[in-house]
């Protein structure tokens, strides 16, 4: 009886695994790499879908090729480069660092720096005490008043 159940479990487990993807890998690590790669490769045919989610025929072809390359023992970096060689930077969701993509990579930091600088200067300005301009006439009037005050103090 237990054997029967075990057999059943094995069968169910096997089919479940096969329906997720028809690929069999030598190691769990390879399978994980495959999942990661097909999630990071963009389908050239369908603009904004990764290879993993796309049902396009081309996506299947790229998946198959990725599987083949993994089994050949190629590294993730090599496989990405392989696909970029054929389909251009478009195929990867991680754009490479090149002069053309510098703005893409550093732009956000630049903007954040600029924003920080603006906020900093505004704050600095708010904290500094307000400077009041005193005209010579006003100054004279103040002196006069002070003098009067002094005199009134002296007379009991």
């Amino acid at each position, binding site marked *: 009886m237990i054997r029967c159940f075990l057999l059943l479990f094995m069968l169910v487990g096997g089919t479940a695994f096969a329906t997720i993807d028809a690929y069999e890998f030598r190691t769990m690590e390879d399978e994980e790499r495959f999942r990661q790669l097909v999630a990071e490769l963009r389908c*050239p*045919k369908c*603009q904004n879908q990764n290879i993993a989610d796309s049902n396009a*025929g*081309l996506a299947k*072809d*790229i998946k198959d*090729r990725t599987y083949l390359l993994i089994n050949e023992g190629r590294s993730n970096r090599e496989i990405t480069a392989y696909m*970029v*060689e*054929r*389909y*251009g930077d*478009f195929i990867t969701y991680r754009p490479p660092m090149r002069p053309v993509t510098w703005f893409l990579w550093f732009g956000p930091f630049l903007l954040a720096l600029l924003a920080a600088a603006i906020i900093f200067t505004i704050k600095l300005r708010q904290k500094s005490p307000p400077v009041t301009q005193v005209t010579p006439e006003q100054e004279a009037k103040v002196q006069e008043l002070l003098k009067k005050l002094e005199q009134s103090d002296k007379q009991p």
Partner: protein
Amino acid sequence: MSRTKWILFSLPLIGFAVMVYFFGSAIGSDPSILPSTRIDKPFPAFELPTLENPEQTVNQTAVKGPLLLNVWATWCPTCIVEHPLLVELSRRGIPMVGLNYKDEPDAARKYLEINGNPFKWNIADVKGDLGLDLGVYGAPETYLIDAEGKIRHRFVGAITPDVWRKELWPQWQAMGGVQPEDAAAQPGGSS
């Protein structure tokens, strides 16, 4: 004081202008058209049967031009649209090779029989392996191959008389392609 104020006030305006420039330059360009990475590179290596004779295989050394290589399939409606133009260009002396992409060879042969065959011969890429190496992402695609077997130009989509005249014909001339006898070889000119 007022000077810095002016600079501060004009900053958003400058930012806006930059954005207008960037987005404006994107208008009119089709984002679904990808540049080919294979330009000025040799035709990728392959070993595949021909559509005409499945017993016979060809490789990249057979793809030496100047010639026009057209990626087509019977399942591709746009290919059917551009087919008459290919037939006409072929009739006017442009050498053409077909890359029958992910197709049923029997259906493909029948299609050429019915619609006319502009190709000298066809590569039967049933699994799409050569297509992947070439960077094909949708049929039809048209490649111009020079005398050394290098890829000189790629066009994605259906060739129209306008596309031929403005885009492909100048490239064809530039790479020293066979000049058809009469200048009217550019279709759509008079017909």
